[in-house]
Structure formats: structure tokens, C-alpha cells
């Protein structure tokens, strides 16, 4: 199948998947009862509760509520977030940028470190360095993020005081404009080096904590696929041409080993995205994950709906992109279903 056809097909399925997801999630949010709680206080009387219900259309049957919700989505209204005390759409872009910045930073850590470690280990199979990296990567995939993050926090924030928590020094943050919402990029645009350093500084701990698990996954995949590739004939053939070991490894074996690794990187994105919930709680990163966690604990269903929907759309798109990249990288396979 041609890549173009494949993309078109997948894009055509996408809306149905999203619709399906929205129905499932909406149905689930209403199984647990009405989401009115977030808007109430224990001092309200029944009449006041009824008034609140009417304000949010929660006095209607569930399918009608779903209709209201969908209608709202098309009008750019995602509901009122009780946690953020503002309409979801108002708060979302800022939080989204924060989360993406963190996820991308963690992704960069994970991808570069994971590929480097995997290549290093795969090329030195069964040597000491390989064993060390294997232990690190297996433990990385089993490490509870919440625990690891706490340890980092204690060591680097409390004991050593090297890295701050939160997203930024508010004074520096306020000092520059935020056209993109990505603090690092905004700082570059503003040409403010202090703000840039501040942004990077705040990113280090959460990105490392979050990236560790993903690094492990990528390193593991990279190692095994590199070992597989190194046993292929073309590697011997490349050596038989007289190429240097390094060239054989990097240009020939690693390049092909990257192909299956790319799919894993795609999956890793989901892993990172869900990891942001925990990392953002612990490192006080003001992103979607932290918002979601608060929403979960306080029953803020407008936020939960938006977050789950958005995450899954993002996840679907990333997977599609990964598939396309994969198809472009791997000359051996044709795209199918």
C-alpha cells in the first residue's frame, strides 16, 4: 500500500476513533454519578444545588448531556473546570504547553540517552558495560516513577539544593512575553539568557525522572535490535569492504536498528504522557498532568474529559506519525493494516 493511501485511510478512521473514545469516556464519567459535586459546597441547600445543576445542564438525561458537551466542543467550550476555577479552554493552552515542554524534554533525554546506551551495550554484548546498562534498563522499566521522583526531590532539591521545583522563577517568568507557552522557546525569543537558564534548570529534575523509564525502554529495544542487526550478513559485507568498525556500527547497523526503535519511541510517548501526571505532582510542574490529578481527586469531570480526550487524540496522531516514519525508514516492509 502506498504511504499516502495509508495515511488517508488512517486519517479517515481517526474521527471515528475519537468519537468512540469520547462516548466511552463520557459514559464512564457519568457512571460514577453526576459531576455536580465539584461545583457544590456543603453549605448549599437543595434549591441552590438545583440551581447549580441547571447552570451546568446536569438536570438533563445523560445522552442530552453528551449532546450539550459535543455542542460545546464544537463551539470551543469544554466546560468549566472547578479545579482551575476557569473555563477549561482558557486554562488548557498554558497547561498544555507546560506539559508538552516537559514531555519533549524528557523525550529528548530518553531518546538520546536510550539510543546511546542501547548502541553502547549492543555493540559490547556480554561485556561489563553491557551488563550494567541492561541492569539499569530493566530496573528503569520497573522503577515506580513516584518513588524515584521522591528520591530525586529529596537529594537534589532538599539536600543539595541544586535544582528547583516548579516550572520557573515567577519573576523571570513574568519578565518575558509568552507567545508559544514553551518557556524555553519564549526565553530564546525574548533573548533573555537568565530566563532560558531558569527554564532549563527547572526542567532538569522532572525531565530526568520522567525520562528514566523511557530511556530504559528505548535502550532495551535499541540494544536487542542492534544485536539482531549486527548478526545480519550486510554487517559482515560492510566489514568485508574494509570499513572501520565505527562506520559499520553507526552507518550500517545502528541505522537499521533504529527502525524498530522508532515504533518503541512512539509508544514511549504515551508512557511519557501518562508519567507527567506523577512527575508533575511531585515536582510541582503546572501542567495538564497535575491539573488532571487534582481533577481526579476533586471529581472535576470537565477537566477529566478534556484531558483524556486530548491525550488520546495526541497519542493517536503520534502513533500515526510514527507509522509513517517507520514506513519511510524501513525499506523492507510495505505498509499494511
Amino acid at each position, binding site marked *: 500500500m502506498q504511504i499516502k493511501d495509508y495515511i488517508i485511510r488512517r486519517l479517515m478512521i481517526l474521527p471515528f476513533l475519537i468519537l468512540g473514545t469520547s462516548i466511552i469516556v463520557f459514559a*464512564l464519567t457519568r457512571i460514577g454519578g453526576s459531576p455536580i459535586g465539584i461545583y457544590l459546597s456543603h453549605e448549599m441547600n437543595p434549591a441552590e444545588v438545583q440551581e447549580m445543576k441547571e447552570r451546568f445542564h446536569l438536570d438533563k438525561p445523560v445522552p442530552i448531556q453528551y449532546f450539550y458537551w459535543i455542542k460545546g466542543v464544537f463551539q470551543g467550550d469544554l466546560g468549566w473546570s472547578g479545579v482551575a476555577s476557569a473555563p477549561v479552554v482558557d486554562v488548557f493552552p498554558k497547561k498544555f504547553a507546560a506539559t508538552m515542554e516537559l514531555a519533549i524534554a524528557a523525550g529528548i533525554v530518553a531518546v538520546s540517552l536510550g539510543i546511546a546506551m542501547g548502541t553502547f551495550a549492543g555493540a559490547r554484548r556480554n561485556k561489563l558495560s553491557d551488563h550494567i546498562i541492561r541492569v539499569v534498563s*530493566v530496573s528503569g522499566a520497573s522503577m515506580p516513577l*513516584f*518513588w524515584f521522583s521522591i528520591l530525586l526531590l529529596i537529594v537534589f532539591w532538599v539536600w543539595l539544593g541544586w535544582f528547583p521545583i516548579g516550572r520557573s522563577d515567577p519573576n523571570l517568568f513574568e519578565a518575558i512575553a509568552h507567545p508559544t507557552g514553551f518557556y524555553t522557546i519564549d526565553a530564546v525569543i525574548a533573548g533573555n539568557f537568565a530566563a532560558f537558564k531558569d527554564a532549563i534548570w527547572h526542567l532538569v529534575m522532572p525531565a530526568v525522572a520522567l525520562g528514566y523509564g523511557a530511556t530504559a525502554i528505548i535502550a532495551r529495544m535499541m540494544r*536487542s535490535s542492534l544485536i539482531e542487526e549486527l548478526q545480519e550478513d550486510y554487517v559482515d559485507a560492510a566489514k568485508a569492504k574494509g570499513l572501520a568498525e565505527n562506520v559499520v556500527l553507526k552507518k550500517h547497523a545502528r541505522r537499521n536498528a533504529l527502525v524498530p526503535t522508532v515504533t518503541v519511541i512512539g509508544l514511549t510517548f504515551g508512557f511519557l504522557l*501518562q508519567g507527567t501526571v506523577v512527575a508533575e505532582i511531585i515536582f510541582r510542574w503546572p501542567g495538564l498532568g497535575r491539573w*488532571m490529578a487534582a481533577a*481526579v481527586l476533586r471529581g472535576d469531570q470537565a477537566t*477529566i474529559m478534556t484531558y483524556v480526550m486530548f491525550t488520546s487524540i495526541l*497519542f493517536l496522531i503520534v502513533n500515526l506519525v510514527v507509522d509513517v516514519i517507520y514506513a519511510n525508514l524501513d525499506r523492507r516492509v510495505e505498509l499494511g493494516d
Partner: protein
Amino acid sequence: MALVDQKKIIENEPIYDSAFKVRLTRNLEILSNVLANPTTVIGLIIVILMISMALFAPIITEPNTPDPYQMPRDWKAARSAPFTPGHILGTTNRGGDVFYGVVWGARTSLKLSLLVVSLTLVVGVIIGSIAGIAGGKIDEVLMRIVDVFLSIPELIFALAIAAILGPSFTNIILALVVVFWVKYARIMRAQVIRIKQREYVDAAKIMGASNLQIYLKDILPNSFSPVMVQATLDMGNIVLVGATLSFIGLSEAGIAEWGVLVSEGQAGISAGRWWASTFPGLMVFLWALAFNLVGDGLRDVFDPRTETKR
């Protein structure tokens, strides 16, 4: 060159011989291959230790009455250090015995992972089999549903569901079941479709076996290895995700569960009370690590791709 010949024989094993004996010898060989990997053995040892700890929890520590899954709370002995008489690993902020939490947390984890894995396995295998065998429209519809479920990252999905159902341990189990069955359905469907096309299934058809017979005798047993690998990995993952949900605050109050204990104990770390969250956190890590090691070992054996060339 005798060795080479032997290898050839194994490769040329007649594939339509579905006799029990062949399967048994093959299983024994698989077992020996699994045990040949030292990391797998380490994993297996930890798994056995963990499971025995869970099973013998009532013998190791005296169960709390009336609900043994609740931490026994000695409020006035809160925040005791390890090796305090009666509290070998110290106590939590609520005076819960950390050792009790560690031991009974294993039981909670075992309960959680076994329940979730067995439920998701059954649901997933049934749905995957139906899709694989029926094919056509049924397959299409089921797989689109699977796609929808797969499109939401699992922790986030579980988080949302658990949040909606309300914080309790049962609800965490339910949430994880809703999230985790999809993988099995996918794996099972792929296996069924693959095996359906094999010769021995045709052979059995010619011999007049019914569809159900073929499914039970040929397809099901032969498609189980990847499902088992996934199940083993999930035994670890589920505890990891479950503990994360508990950590975020979706479990019952006062329950003996590792994630809850880590969350309760984290504030104390800076004040030097590292024990209340370190031990349970370590347990989550070891549990996940052990099952990951075993699962990886199994996958190495079952998955021919990783078989090394000479």
C-alpha cells in the same frame, strides 16, 4: 558434526504431530532454556519469595482484626524508628506497622495482580478468539472497539475510571480490568489468525473435527505462549500502575498497600523518617522488576527473533 545433525532434527520436527508427548518434551526444553538465563532465575527467585510472603502473610504477622487488609494502627506509637520493639521496620504517621504493610501489601498486590490478570486474560482471550475465528464484520467491529481502548494511554485511562468510580481498592481492580484486557484480545486474535492457517489445523479439519474441538485442542494451546509472556509482564505492571493510582490517592483509607504507604510516608523522609516510604517503594520496585525479568526471559525463549545465530 553430530551436534549439527541434532539441530536439524529439531528444526524438521513434523509440525502436524500434535501428540501430547511432543508438547511435553518441548515444554521441558523450554523450561530448561528459561532457567538457563541467570537474570530470569533471579527474577523467579524474587517472584517466589514475594508470592510466599503473600501466601504466608497470616503466619508471618498476626492478621489485624476484623479486616486483615487494614493496617493495624497504634496511634500513640506513630513514627517509630525501625527496630523499635514490636515494629521491626518502624511505623507510619498513623502508627501503622511498616513490616505489616510490607507483608500484607504483598498479599494486596498478589490479589490485585492475580485478579486483574486472570479477568483480563479471560475477557481478552475470549474476545480475541471470537474476532480471530469469526473474522469478517464481527472481527472488524471488535477490533475497532479495541482500537478505541488502545488509543487512551493506560495509566490515564485507569486514573480516569478509578476517579469516577471513587477511591477504593475494588474500583482500582475494576479500572485496571477495563484498561488491560485489550492487549490480550489483540495478541490472541493475531495468534488465532496465524495458527488458523497452519497445516495441522487443516489436517484436523479433514479428520472431521468440529470447530470447537479444533479451537480447544489445536488453536488455544498453541497460541498461549505469547499470552503467557504478556500475563507475566502484566503481573508486574499492574502492581506498578495500581500503586501509582494508590499513590495519587485513589485507594481506600488505611489499607495495607504499598503505594498508599509510600504516599503516607513521603513527607517524613526529609525529617529523617525514610523507612515508611522506602520499604514499600522498594517492594513495588522489586515486584515489578522480578516479573519483568521473568517475562523477558520467557519472551527470549518463545520469541524466535532473539535466537542468536552461530
